């Protein structure tokens, strides 16, 4: 998510305002503060707010699409700025300003702490970098015992995949009467030998298919079942041209 625009660096050569390098508005604020080499705990909020607003403004001028997160922060800072610039702050108001400034400072310090922590994390002696595992692991053996393994990730992925397919609309409303191919084959096997000569496949569909989905499903499964029965040599199928009626006939009744 974040910033969608400007991902192609060659697109706009004159661009000097680029939000791509930032991981959100707080990261942008941190980077602006760092440019000033300011101590975050003592940073003056007003100039920082102004810089941020100016930055966003120039991004807007070059028609950068600005993610909502940046705009929300801009609105918040604009509000803070207006309060800070109030000529005669009443006691209540100044308290609010202190709260807001402290909150902003805390948020900056907190994210900076996490950014530093992530660097220190990667400086740890990592496995496969600075620490190595046994190169010739050994399983102790006498009898073999199969241990099925699975990871939580695989489990969630399997479920996610299944539900994704479902969501795509291929498999829906499970409670309706959908004919399985197996059922359709059994049905055709049972009914067809009693039917004389060539007949429309549609006439073999089960009765009572009021929902269009049910009818389509039944047609699809009966057609697939018919193909399987042709393969077995039990029936014959015929279609005069594409999209025309499909005719079906039992080979068993024919030979008898």
């Amino acid at each position, binding site marked *: 998510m974040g910033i969608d625009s400007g991902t192609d660096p060659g697109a706009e050569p004159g661009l000097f305002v680029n939000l791509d390098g930032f991981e959100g508005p707080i990261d942008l604020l941190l980077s602006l503060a760092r440019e000033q080499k300011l101590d975050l705990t003592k940073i003056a909020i007003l100039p920082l707010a102004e810089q941020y607003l100016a930055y966003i403004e120039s991004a807007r001028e070059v028609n950068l699409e600005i993610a909502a997160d940046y705009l929300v922060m801009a609105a918040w800072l604009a509000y803070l700025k207006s309060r800070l610039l109030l000529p005669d702050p009443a006691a209540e108001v100044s308290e609010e300003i202190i709260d807001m400034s402290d909150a902003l400072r805390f948020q900056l310090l907190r994210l900076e702490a996490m950014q530093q922590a992530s660097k220190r994390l990667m400086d740890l002696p990592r496995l496969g970098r600075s620490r190595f595992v046994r190169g010739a692991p050994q399983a102790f053996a006498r009898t073999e015992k199969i241990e099925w393994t699975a990871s939580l990730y695989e489990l969630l992925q399997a479920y*996610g995949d299944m539900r994704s397919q479902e969501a795509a609309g291929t498999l829906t409303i499970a409670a309706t009467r959908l004919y399985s191919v197996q059922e359709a084959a059994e049905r055709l096997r049972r009914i067809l030998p009693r039917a004389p000569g060539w007949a429309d496949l549609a006439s073999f569909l089960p009765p009572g298919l009021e929902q269009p989905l049910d009818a389509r499903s039944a047609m699809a499964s009966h057609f697939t079942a018919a193909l399987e029965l042709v393969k077995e040599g039990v029936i014959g199928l015929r279609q005069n041209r594409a999209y025309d009626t499909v005719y079906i006939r039992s080979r068993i009744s024919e030979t008898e």
Partner: protein
Amino acid sequence: MSQPDDKLPDDKVIETARILEALIFASAKPVSRREMMVYAAEESELDAALQLIADRYGPESGLEFCRIDRDWAFRTRPDVAARLNLEKPVERPLSRAGLEVLAIIAYHQPVTRAEIEEIRGISLSRGTLDILLELGWIKPRGRRRTPGRPLTWGTSPAFLDYFGLSGIDDLPGMEDLRASGLLRKGQILGGLGEPGEAAEPDDETDLPSDEEAWLDFEAEAEEETGEGGRDAGL
């Protein structure tokens, strides 16, 4: 390959021994002298370092430092290996079908066999539930109060243990799955949903403990195998 008796190993030899110990530990195959000479200034230093390692892995250790031809490796001492050789576990990843069925049971429990088939749109082969049952990851959860009183399935404490979950509730919900990119497109059709949220009230809500569910299950087994009285269960 001998350390003069009148001299303690110097720091250089100790350092080389540490490096070689780590190298041989991390290598998949025995390590040759040639490979080791990269880390030693001269043959005598290499020998002294190897001797130092051999001393550290004496009989009081479960391992021995062995020379195989001109290569060196760590091996489990045979007497220790004999004590360790209980069963050799062969790891095999659970099949896709197994994963799917397990996921459905986890998310939709208590769920009947027919419902699992409905969700997957494919009939369930006998072996799939067997493997999950053998793993101890699933267990019967009583019977559904519908015609035929089908048996329902749920996950076991061993399932939670294996996957490092503190409860079924820990499974990410639909929103979490979508947010983390595991659920790809669009909307989820209603009905089946968040973990722990059973579709219909079942008998098993009347069965407070596992024990009773098991009793019920055993009764069922009887019913199926023997000619059994009808009301064996409840």
